[in-house]
């Protein structure tokens, strides 16, 4: 366990080095979030009664989504890992007395967390000071806020566990472009990245909420704004825990299979 924590710390402090990139990212995400909110405002003005969440909750959802983008966006996969599979550098990793799955898992966690730490605070701060309906509202209650933090990490775990599946699959397919693109767009849509899940019609939404993708950003963001509470919330948290373990178990199986029949590429 200690060596994986060491990997985590190494990657984490590496990620913190890129401050200029983070600044550019913050500006981009802030504008992006503002545009998103303006779009929702137009729909809200058109027909407020058809709006499934309160407008404030929607704004909070958008700002939180932008602030913690690095935690949940599936397209932020690590090219180094894919490259190492294609060009054979993976063999160095395999020589070490460590488990590839665990190492990559801690590494992805660290990368995402360090990016999020750098980027989230300025965005959240700026969003708090925006005028009332458009800004980020304070959390509905202290328990809700604590639960938000817990589910944030659970969601991060589910996202990383899912990305691990893609890494593992690319052991078998070698060229990962196709699998990756398909996986990324499926996650983006089903996790509520394009529009939040409450905006979908009921039958579709009920199915979507059971899928692992809904356990990513959907749960923490909606708990924060108070959109998700009571029994459905408990249900969602249990599902998150279930999917976290299920995806990790599946990834481990693939890991074992891949290690049995791995071919080193390149020379």
């Amino acid at each position, binding site marked *: 366990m200690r060596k994986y924590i060491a990997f985590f710390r190494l990657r984490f402090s590496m990620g913190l080095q890129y401050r200029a*990139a983070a600044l*550019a*990212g913050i*500006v*981009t995400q802030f*504008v*992006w979030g503002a*545009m998103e909110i*303006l*779009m929702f*405002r*137009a*729909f809200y*003005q*058109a*027909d407020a009664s*058809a709006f*499934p969440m309160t407008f404030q909750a929607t704004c909070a959802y958008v700002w939180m989504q932008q602030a913690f983008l690095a935690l949940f966006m599936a397209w932020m996969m690590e090219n180094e890992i894919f490259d190492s599979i294609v060009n054979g550098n993976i063999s160095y990793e395999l020589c070490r007395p460590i488990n590839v799955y665990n190492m990559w898992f801690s590494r992805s966690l660290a990368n995402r967390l360090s990016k999020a730490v750098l980027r989230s605070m300025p965005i959240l701060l700026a969003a708090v000071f925006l005028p009332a309906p458009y800004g980020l509202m304070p959390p509905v209650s202290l328990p809700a806020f604590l639960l938000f933090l817990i589910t944030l990490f659970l969601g991060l775990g589910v996202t990383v566990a899912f990305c691990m599946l893609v890494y593992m699959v690319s052991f078998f397919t070698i*060229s990962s*472009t*196709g*699998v*990756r*693109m*398909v996986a*990324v*767009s*499926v996650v*983006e*849509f089903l996790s509520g990245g*394009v*529009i939040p899940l409450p*905006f*979908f*019609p009921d039958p*579709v939404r009920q199915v979507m909420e059971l899928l692992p993708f809904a356990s990513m950003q959907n749960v923490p963001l909606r708990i924060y704004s108070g959109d998700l509470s009571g029994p459905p919330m408990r249900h969602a948290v249990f599902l998150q825990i279930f999917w976290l373990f299920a995806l990790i178990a599946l990834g481990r199986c693939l890991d074992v299979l891949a290690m049995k029949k791995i071919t080193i590429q390149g020379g």
Partner: protein
Amino acid sequence: MKLYGKFFMIHLKSIMEYKTSFILSCIGQFLVSFNVFLGMYFMFRRFSNVEGFTYNDVLLCFGITLMEFSLAESFARRFDTFPSVIRNGEFDRIMVRPRNEILQVLGSRVEFSRIGRILQALVMFTYGFAVSGIRWTFGKIVTIIFMLIGGTAVFSGLFLIYAAICFFTLEGLEFMNIFTDGAREYGKYPVSIYGKTVFQLCTFVVPYALIQYYPLLVLLDRGKPYYSLLPLAACLFLIPCLLLWKTGVRHYSSAGS
């Protein structure tokens, strides 16, 4: 132009050596913009209209914007990887050849996986027209052609700015994405829905409204006739872009080896 055609063929041949990977990435590209469409579809299942635009109007708008963007992207996207061209010194080689620099940069790589996106744009474009119930006149066809020309010009100009900035910073600036990918993303709705400030910015600073909102009104029989000429005015946007590029080239000092 003949030179560009030649570059184009060379790249087509080389990409065909890796067929499966090529097809898969085309599918991927296709899916990416399909998400946007699905998002719109579900929004309009809930809301009947936005700022007086119905689902069909917005589809038309999305189809045209996507088409404009894809056209520009398929031959000007090379500017996207321009930072690496500068950093590894490839631009030195380009400078010594007796040809136009822009042409050479454009020709040095052609992204065929964008075909997936063009295809998707084409599908959306046709679908948008099919459901729009538009009453065809000669003027409208001309308007659409103007829109495509103007739109391609504006988006190419933005890519050019992105590359020109690299001369000064050596690095791509992430915030330029707001103007290129962001415009595609948010151009799916007519720009007027984003409120007055954004609308004015989109008219006078970066002329999105001229290639999207105003001519769209003509197509929907709501605009004044001269609106259909506005996309051509948007082509003027290329002038400052080219100037910035020229300044950049003059400012260029070699990096890398």
